[in-house]
């Protein structure tokens, strides 16, 4: 422990170099802006700015790129809350409650909750990374296909909490998401499925345009079509007091456990190679629906519904660095890009990195603390300006939102097809909303199902004789399966016991 603290202190002497402070602040600001723009996630931000760092010192370069990564997590919540367009996929669940809060005239409160939850999640993630990162990276490696299958089944079993008032509609919405996830080339056998002859669908349906359509474009359709009152009057006349935007002590008490819980879940999920911040934010939201004292409030404008995914996605961005630095295995798409950058600068991530380049590793870790504080300060200063966005008249907001949806959808793959698909999913999302089909289960299924399909089939392929016993003989897999069974049956048993005549 004392050795780690000494090395961290040494790292701060590197991170507090004026050049490195400048790099992390610039990276953080860029990350917030890129994160706030629909369609441009951290992968795009890092990819766009990577060439600019070629001539920099490697430590400074990685510090700036890392700043973009976690700054992006802060920024993604801005458009999610204010426009119902998630800035990137980790902010999808933030939009569910965040936009409802904005409609209730609490945009400032939602933004402050998101930013402070992101900050605390990032700090918790950074602390765990500092003291336990290398050891936990080895735990993450023990997750094979069977373990991933059970983990995702465990998460999908919890979708019941998102089904809404009509379970049949909720399950149908989940099922539609599962169907959409089968579109594209089968990852195991290479067979195209449900592509209808369209080359653009061979890689599967484009996820970001789908989300932009369901949340953002559908919202514009509701705003402009007859017979649907969005309650903009509430937004316009609500008194925008900065003091009112801060959370009260009671509200802090309500979300504090949520933030800690979300951070721990986020860090752990981020640790798993290939999982990333998106899955982490979904898992944290699902856990919140299960464990919150007032789950009925989630989805209707609950601060916990913003705090959980935001703390998780920032903690996950820290967790993704653990396998990268310790084992040279990227934990997410963005860290895969960073891995490329590291190798370009002659640094070989892995167990030896800590020994051969300690100033780089500990300088990077120390910069995460500084960067997290810097980005929080920037975002807090922006809130008074951002909170006015919901007051923008519908005549300006609607066409601008359409323009952002178009630009965001195109920016992902530079494809016109993605814009068309966004419009299609927007119409689907509009009808789902009007006919009271919940959209979060569809998006959840879209996120989790592709991984589930691949992991399940891989597990059976590596199992002797294709036996499904692999899911039981692997201890981690068995633990998740048992947890899933308990999660489904325990509430039913408790309810039966309460309703029984003798009780």
């Amino acid at each position, binding site marked *: 422990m004392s050795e780690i603290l000494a090395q961290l202190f040494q790292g701060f002497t590197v991170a507090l170099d004026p050049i490195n402070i400048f790099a992390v602040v610039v990276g953080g600001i860029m990350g917030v802006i*890129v994160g706030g*723009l629909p369609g*441009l996630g951290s992968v795009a931000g890092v990819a*766009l700015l990577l060439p600019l760092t070629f001539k920099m010192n490697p430590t400074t370069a990685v510090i700036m790129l890392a700043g973009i990564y976690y700054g992006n997590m802060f920024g993604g919540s801005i458009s999610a809350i204010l426009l119902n367009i998630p800035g990137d996929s980790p902010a999808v669940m933030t939009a569910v409650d965040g936009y409802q809060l904005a409609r209730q005239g609490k945009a400032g409160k939602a933004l402050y909750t998101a930013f402070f939850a992101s900050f605390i999640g990032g700090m918790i993630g950074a602390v765990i990374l500092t003291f336990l990162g290398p050891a936990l990276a080895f735990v993450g490696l023990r997750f094979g296909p069977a373990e991933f299958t059970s983990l995702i089944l465990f998460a999908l079993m919890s979708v019941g909490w998102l089904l809404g008032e*009509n379970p*049949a*509609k909720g*399950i*149908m919405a*989940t*099922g*539609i998401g*599962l*169907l959409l*996830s*089968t579109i594209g080339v*089968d990852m*195991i*056998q290479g*067979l195209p*499925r*449900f592509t209808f002859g369209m080359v653009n669908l061979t890689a599967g349906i484009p996820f970001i345009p789908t989300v932009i359509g369901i949340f953002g474009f559908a919202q*514009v*359709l509701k705003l*402009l*079509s*007859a*017979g649907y009152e969005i309650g903009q009057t509430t937004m316009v006349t609500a008194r925008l007091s900065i003091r009112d935007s801060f959370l009260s002590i009671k509200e802090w008490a309500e979300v504090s456990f949520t933030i800690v819980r979300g951070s721990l879940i986020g860090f752990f999920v981020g640790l798993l190679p290939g999982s990333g911040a998106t899955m982490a934010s979904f898992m944290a939201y699902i856990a919140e629906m299960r464990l919150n004292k007032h789950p009925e409030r989630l989805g209707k404008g609950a601060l916990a519904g913003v705090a959980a995914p935001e703390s998780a996605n920032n903690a996950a961005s820290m967790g993704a660095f653990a396998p990268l630095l310790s084992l040279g295995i990227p934990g997410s798409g963005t860290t895969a890009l960073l891995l490329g950058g590291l190798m370009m600068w002659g640094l070989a991530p892995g167990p030896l990195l800590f020994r051969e380049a300690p100033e780089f590793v500990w300088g990077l870790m120390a910069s995460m603390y500084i960067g997290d504080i810097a980005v929080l300060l920037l975002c807090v200063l922006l809130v008074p300006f951002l909170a006015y966005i919901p007051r923008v*008249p*519908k*005549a*300006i907001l*609607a*066409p*601008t939102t*359409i*323009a*952002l949806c*178009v*630009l965001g959808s*195109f*920016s992902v793959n*530079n494809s*016109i097809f993605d*814009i*068309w698909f966004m*419009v299609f999913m927007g*119409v689907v999302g*509009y*009808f789902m909303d*009007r*006919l009271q*089909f919940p959209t979060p289960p569809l998006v959840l299924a879209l996120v989790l*199902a592709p991984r589930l*399909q691949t992991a*399940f*089939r891989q597990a*059976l*392929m590596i199992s002797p004789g*294709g036996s499904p016993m692999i899911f039981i003989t692997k201890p981690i897999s068995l633990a998740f399966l048992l947890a899933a069974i308990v999660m489904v049956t325990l509430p039913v048993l408790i309810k039966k016991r309460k309703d029984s005549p003798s009780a």
Partner: protein
Amino acid sequence: MREDFISSLIGLGLGLYWIVMGIIYGFWEETGPASGFTPVVFGLIVTVSSVALFWQSLRSKKDKKQIITKKELLDLFKICLAVCLVIFCIPRLGTFTSLGLLLVIGIKLISSSTWLMATCTGVGITVILYLVFKVWLMVPLPQGLLGF
């Protein structure tokens, strides 16, 4: 509700289609699940839930009030038509030219402002979007005839 009845039929159609195609792709092989395994399973989920919704819609009291009115559908059609027109124009006129026209005409039609105000606001927003997406982020957006 009539809308639930229609939705359940659509869901049923999709579920059955996925099941049939999943069987065609192949359900099981020697090494384990084939490409059609998950489509069949997921199709079954949708089919069963659609049948449940279908049953619910038959048993529910006849509700004369439509959730989605004809006027709403007409408005939806008009908005989608306008957006589709913009997307069609993007490769030909250019991204920002098309979006600029959308913004100016959209602001004018939705609000009661003058053409001058709508043009100034629309062009101003387009310039900001151009500076962010084209100049700063260098997203390779279609330029069209006018170079924007």
